């Protein structure tokens, strides 16, 4: 068992309800209004990225049932309101200084606090201050998305009470808090109404601070404060917002007065020294459950639904009666990391600081499926620390990152890792900043109708913040790529990058910009038909190569990839699968490179193989219009296997952004018309040569017996084309010896290379082999004569046939 101790309480949660749209929940376009909770979640994403020593880090924003929002954030020490004893003047100045620092930072970020109060200013044992829950006003769109008032009455500035108020309201509130720290709590026994009236009567006061002190019989105490501190208070408590000081002035003033030296922050070692976001993540993996804890603490109450049923529902949808919980609860529930600590207690201190040059550990978990690894506390512990280390050294560590990403990518840092894999470097913010993302263009209408249909089950992408950002990204990309146009599907392609970089638009853009040339070169040309046709033809050839039986069947029923695979490749499957599957596909894609998608296509077909084999045209096409569940882990694994076991040249495409080879040994390019006609891919001489060297090929020479006996490739067998009955799809028909050799070759997964003197016979014969369900069949590019020219050493005179056949 573990012992909970005070220091283990690193974060806390609080909860409130978003506004409910009453009645008819449709906007003018007939679509449902975005729920307030979704809008809040979208806005709050930015808060998750804010880091400042005097601000509690936001860790998570969760959407519960019934528009409930749960905010998880760091906590330290206790709140000002929990301190019973008075602070000394020095302490007061020190606290105020840090609060002002935090608020200055927030205002620079364009964030107004608006709910500052003595219970969200936290102070730890060493006098260090952090503001808690400073983003409520920001995440609720200035209070628009909730139906309760924000802020405690006594901390509201006069203009806030009257008409809202801007950032300067924070200065007033700060002044009140400072005054309270000096002379004690204000208006302690008053109800909200009278308090508000008191504040409003201050409008007539020359010096509201003095006036308040007098009202509380503290005038003398107030006057005894150091003058410079009093001045700061008075600069804050001006009735007119524009007369108030700004936080940068206040920080300057206070730093003059502040004499306390802060003790060096000692970064704890070991677990408690890890990034809070990591701790929270591991804590959740270890079984930590925010909602369960809230229930235990009574912040979420389960009452029988009957009790919350309204007494009446009006025609406009408003309800009367019924017990609902409090809309806003100012209590917080703290969470202990004790559980996590004990879970990871056996890990040695050394493991917290993995060193680059040490060989990384092998973990048992590596053999488990990725989705399981992603949920394994200990595994993610090692992986995250290791990746943190590597990412820190990027771009110098790029090769290491790639090598590690090949194993798996921890979800928490996927955005960073993808950017590294795509080679994103430099000042991307500045570049992105400069692009015009606003000027209307004729493409806008299409983008506007596509975005509300793009991955809308994802709450990040379905809110207005998501919609706006996606539109900006698309417009920016189109502007920077004038050679390209908007094809429907580009929205889906952009979505994963936005999803992983929601608060880093520039990086989402940089990733997209790097992704397209690598994987989808020329796909978005106005006339992309040749590019797509070539891609689909190659996909079909890869299918024949790895799934000959299936390929023959599909050819036979005239089922062509044009009918179903365009969205697969045009969007790299992002239009076909939900995001949680896409990220796994793309993890592999980014590591393996641009040939992998072809094999992923084959991988999908392979999973549907049995159904497809027994289906006719209609059933097949129906299957793809409504794709059944695909096991992505399996599909990725298989496609990587296929990709790696395929000679590179067989997946050659001319429409890539790689330089074309001039080397005859590497060449496999044929006219497009020919490509569309060939069922089997071509293999280059150099690939063939490496196969020979590794004894991984089986050459079938289909020239006449006469030519073969004169000279042939060493180890090849001769099956004269003229003697083959193309109609008989059985290997037996080729004769005993060829059948035996082929069977043997198939067993050890050799690549079957068809060598001929003419293209036509090579095509027909290789097609025949596919129909006989022979896998891994390809055609020798250039035929026998090319080998004779470039690899003459491979030729020999065959031994008399009666001996062994293949020697």
């Amino acid at each position, binding site marked *: 068992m573990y012992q909970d101790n005070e220091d283990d309480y690193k974060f806390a949660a609080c909860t409130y309800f978003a506004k409910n749209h009453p009645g008819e929940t449709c906007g003018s*376009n007939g679509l449902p209004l975005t729920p307030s909770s979704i809008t809040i979640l979208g806005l709050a994403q930015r808060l998750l990225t804010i880091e400042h020593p005097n601000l509690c880090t936001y860790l998570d924003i969760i959407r519960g049932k019934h528009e409930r929002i749960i905010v998880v954030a760091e906590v330290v020490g206790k709140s000002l309101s929990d301190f019973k004893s008075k602070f000394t003047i020095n302490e007061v100045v020190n606290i105020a200084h840090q609060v002002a620092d935090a608020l200055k930072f927030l205002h620079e970020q364009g964030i107004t606090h608006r709910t500052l109060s003595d219970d969200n200013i936290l102070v730890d044992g060493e006098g260090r201050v952090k503001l808690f829950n400073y983003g409520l006003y920001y995440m609720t769109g200035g209070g628009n998305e909730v139906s309760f008032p924000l802020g405690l009455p006594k901390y509201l500035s006069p203009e806030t009470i009257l008409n809202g108020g801007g950032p300067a309201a924070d200065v007033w509130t700060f002044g009140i808090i400072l005054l309270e720290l000096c002379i004690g709590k204000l208006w302690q026994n008053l109800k909200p109404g009278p308090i508000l009236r008191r504040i409003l009567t201050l409008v007539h006061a020359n010096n509201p601070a003095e006036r308040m002190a007098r009202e509380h019989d503290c005038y003398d105490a107030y006057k005894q404060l150091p003058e410079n501190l009093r001045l700061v208070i008075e600069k804050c408590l001006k009735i007119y917002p524009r007369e108030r000081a700004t936080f940068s002035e206040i920080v300057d003033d206070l730093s003059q007065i502040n004499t306390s030296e802060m003790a060096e922050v000692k970064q704890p070692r070991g677990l408690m020294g890890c990034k809070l976001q990591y701790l929270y993540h591991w804590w959740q993996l270890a079984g930590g459950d925010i909602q369960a804890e809230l229930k235990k603490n009574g912040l979420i109450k389960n009452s029988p639904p009957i009790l919350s049923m309204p007494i009446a529902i009006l025609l406009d949808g408003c309800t009367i009666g019924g017990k609902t919980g409090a809309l806003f609860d100012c209590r917080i529930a703290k969470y202990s990391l004790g559980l996590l600590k004990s879970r990871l207690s056996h890990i040695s201190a050394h493991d917290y600081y993995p060193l680059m040059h040490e060989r990384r550990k092998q973990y048992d978990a590596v053999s488990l499926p990725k989705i399981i690894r992603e949920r394994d506390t200990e595994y993610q512990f090692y992986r995250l620390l290791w990746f943190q280390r590597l990412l820190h050294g990027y771009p110098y560590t790029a090769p290491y990152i790639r090598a590690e990403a090949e194993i798996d990518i921890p979800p928490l840092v996927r955005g960073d890792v993808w950017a590294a894999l795509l080679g994103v470097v430099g000042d991307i913010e500045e570049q992105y900043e400069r692009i015009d993302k606003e000027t209307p263009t004729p493409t806008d209408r299409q983008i506007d*109708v*596509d975005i*509300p249909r793009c991955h809308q089950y994802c709450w990040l992408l379905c809110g207005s913040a998501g919609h706006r950002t996606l539109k900006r990204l698309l417009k920016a990309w189109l502007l920077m790529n004038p050679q390209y146009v908007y094809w429907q599907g580009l929205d889906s392609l952009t979505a994963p990058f936005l999803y992983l970089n929601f608060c880093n638009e520039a990086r989402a853009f940089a990733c997209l910009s790097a992704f397209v040339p690598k994987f989808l070169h020329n796909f978005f040309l106005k006339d992309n038909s040749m590019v797509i046709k070539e891609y689909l033809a190659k996909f079909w050839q890869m299918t024949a190569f790895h799934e000959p039986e299936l390929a023959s069947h599909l050819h036979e029923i005239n089922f062509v990839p044009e009918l179903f695979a365009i*969205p697969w490749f045009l969007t790299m499957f992002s239009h076909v699968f939900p995001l949680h599957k896409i990220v796994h596909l793309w993890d592999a894609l980014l590591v393996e490179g641009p040939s992998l998608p072809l094999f992923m296509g084959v991988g999908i077909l392979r999973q549907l193989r049995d159904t497809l084999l027994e289906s*006719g*045209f*209609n059933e097949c096409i*129906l299957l793809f219009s409504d794709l059944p569940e695909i096991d992505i882990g399996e599909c990725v694994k298989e496609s990587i296997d296929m990709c790696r076991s395929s000679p590179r040249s067989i997946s050659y495409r001319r429409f890539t952004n790689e330089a074309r080879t001039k080397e005859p040994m590497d060449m496999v390019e044929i006219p497009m018309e020919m490509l569309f006609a060939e069922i089997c891919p071509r293999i280059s001489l150099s690939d063939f040569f490496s196969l020979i060297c590794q004894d991984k090929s089986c050459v079938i020479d289909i020239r006449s017996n006469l030519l073969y006996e004169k000279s042939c490739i060493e180890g090849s067998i001769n099956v004269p084309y003229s003697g083959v009955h193309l109609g008989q799809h059985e290997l037996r028909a080729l004769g005993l010896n060829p059948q035996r050799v082929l069977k043997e070759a198939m067993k050890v997964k050799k690549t079957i290379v068809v060598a001929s003197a003419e293209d036509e016979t090579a095509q027909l014969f290789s097609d025949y082999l596919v129909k006989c369900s022979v896998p891994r069949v390809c055609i020798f590019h250039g035929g026998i004569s090319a080998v004779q020219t470039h690899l003459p050493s491979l030729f020999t005179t065959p031994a008399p046939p009666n001996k062994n056949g293949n020697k």
Partner: protein
Amino acid sequence: MATNRSGAAQRPNGAPQTKVCQFKLVLLGESAVGKSSLVLRFVKGQFHEYQESTIGAAFLTQTVCLDDTTVKFEIWDTAGQERYHSLAPMYYRGAQAAIVVYDITNQDTFGRAKNWVKELQRQASPSIVIALAGNKSDLAAKRMVEFEEAQAYADENGLLFMETSAKTAMNVNDIFLAIANKLPKSEGAGAAGAGGARRLADGEQPRPSSCCK
């Protein structure tokens, strides 16, 4: 009218005397007018607010029962974006019926629908039955295309016409039913387009395109 789930009723049991006819139907129209939504409503009785955009085309089937005939629709739902236009002939070639869809809240989509009708009249099988659907009729408050205007246009061009709503299901089954009624169901009828009709599905069992048993 009775509809079955896709592909469920090739030949209803116990009623061998019923004729079963198979027709290829294509949906055309500007992007986001609701083509996929109409098909989804017709085939599965559902409506998705966030219906994904269609890339390339999607294929679905649905069967409707008329008095003495069972009509099986093979429906090709195409992509609406102008850029995908070049793919369209692959789908309407040999189709016996087409629904050209526009959005009553957007005048441009009506213009685009007229272009589709023209193209079909020029390029598709001459006997093709064309229906015009003014979709999103639930958004009457935002109407930009008057019913009368569209009706007049449909009359001029001999089109079936209905205003529909995939959202409320209004007229969705009706428009498919009206097409089914108008399609010739006698042996050999509509054979003109047969060659093309089966083009996509050639390999499947060799059977006449609007085969009646």
